[in-house]
């Protein structure tokens, strides 16, 4: 499974915000997109996920494992997205948050529960299922958010500055946690960041987006 962006071109009110020839993210690799604010990094991710604001005009195709998903709504694309905010549902427990995206194909309460508990144990959060997300630390919340995204079994992962709000010590650990899982699952990941240390840790190719004015 690879993620290929074919000739994306995004414009806003007739002004070209971003244009690329082709960007391929192989399975199990993290491609980093860097660039100054306003260069269209987050807009690119929004387009890939299918949630681009209608104010923008976009051309190009998103291919996932060779399949064109450009025409699908976000919830049918199977593309996971991690944001700077963990966005855990405050009215659900940790386990219910994790269960939210579990594929419907996984049937039976016990099986779903087992999958959630295994994920928690693996993330060194055993027994955290019944907890209220509000009682977790920043690093724990970040890990739960990532687990939730992964349990939905996405075919590709988009990371929009997901470490931006974590302090330096925590950032390294959560980063390793994320990249290690991307490699192990063999899904393509596209990372948007300001932080060169993120790009270095990702270990993949780095794409520098130019200043919007240059486009």
């Amino acid at each position, binding site marked *: 499974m690879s993620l290929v962006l074919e000739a994306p071109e995004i414009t806003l009110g007739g002004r070209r915000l971003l244009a690329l020839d082709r960007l391929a993210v192989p399975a199990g690799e993290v491609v980093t997109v860097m660039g100054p604010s306003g260069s269209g990094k987050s807009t690119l991710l929004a387009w890939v996920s299918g949630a681009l604001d209608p104010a923008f005009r976009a051309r190009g195709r998103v291919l996932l494992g060779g399949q064109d998903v450009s025409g699908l709504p976000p919830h049918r694309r199977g593309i996971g997205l991690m944001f700077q905010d963990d966005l855990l549902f405050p009215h659900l427990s940790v386990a219910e948050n994790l269960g939210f*995206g579990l594929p419907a194909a996984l049937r039976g309460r016990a099986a779903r529960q087992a999958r959630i508990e295994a994920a928690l144990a693996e993330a060194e959060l055993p027994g955290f299922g019944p907890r209220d997300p509000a009682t977790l630390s920043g690093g724990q919340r970040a890990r739960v958010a990532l687990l939730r995204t992964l349990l939905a079994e996405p075919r590709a992962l988009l990371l929009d500055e997901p470490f931006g709000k974590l302090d330096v010590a925590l950032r390294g650990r959560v980063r390793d946690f994320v990249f290690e899982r991307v490699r192990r699952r063999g899904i393509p990941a596209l990372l948007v960041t300001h932080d060169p240390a993120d790009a270095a840790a990702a270990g993949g190719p780095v794409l520098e987006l130019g200043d919007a004015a240059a486009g």
Partner: protein
Amino acid sequence: MPGLTAEEWGAVALSLEVATRSVLVSLVPAVAVAWLLARGRFPGRMLLDALVHLPLVVPPVVVGWGLLMLFGVRGPIGAPLDAWFGVRLVFTTEGAALATAVMSFPLIVRAVRLGLEAVDPGLEAAARTLGAGPVDRFVTVTLPLMSPGILAGAVTAFAAGLGEFGAVITFASNIPGETQTLPLAIYSATQTPGGEAVAARLAFVSFGLAMAGLLLAEAIARRMGRLLGRA
């Protein structure tokens, strides 16, 4: 409550019934309208907003008159209702509930809308990337998170509905046991020689119910806020 006669209790019970029915009638449309006003992007949104808020600023008698014109036995809605379903709203308890519902509608819409606007759109975006379709997102994320607003709106509208006067007396008239709610009974008592004691007792009940409703609305909003991790 000491010293209320059966007839006075009847007015209290009728008020509770009318207020309850008015909330039941308006709750779902109010959520839909609040959604349209908060999230909708369509021409005429401002007009809908103004229309919804009209009962707050127009004299209640005018609202009652408008309902008479629309739902009267010869009105454009009242006539077919009568002809097809045998339903008459004028001068009935149902009519009193309808008039009350129209009057308290803006109160529910405002509370629901506040509740909806307090929902972080990021959470809905997150639900979407987790594979939840529009209906799924609304039921599992948006609705529970906006429920404090819905509940607060329902309780406030209920408390206000207990006291609706002008629209009810105009549209449903002042029939004891049928449409004579608490405020109408108080009004009748003040018009009756020697009715001061009755008016005072009923006014006291009215005050107590309204206070209880408002305190309940506040308590619910706080409790739900805590449950949802926002307080």
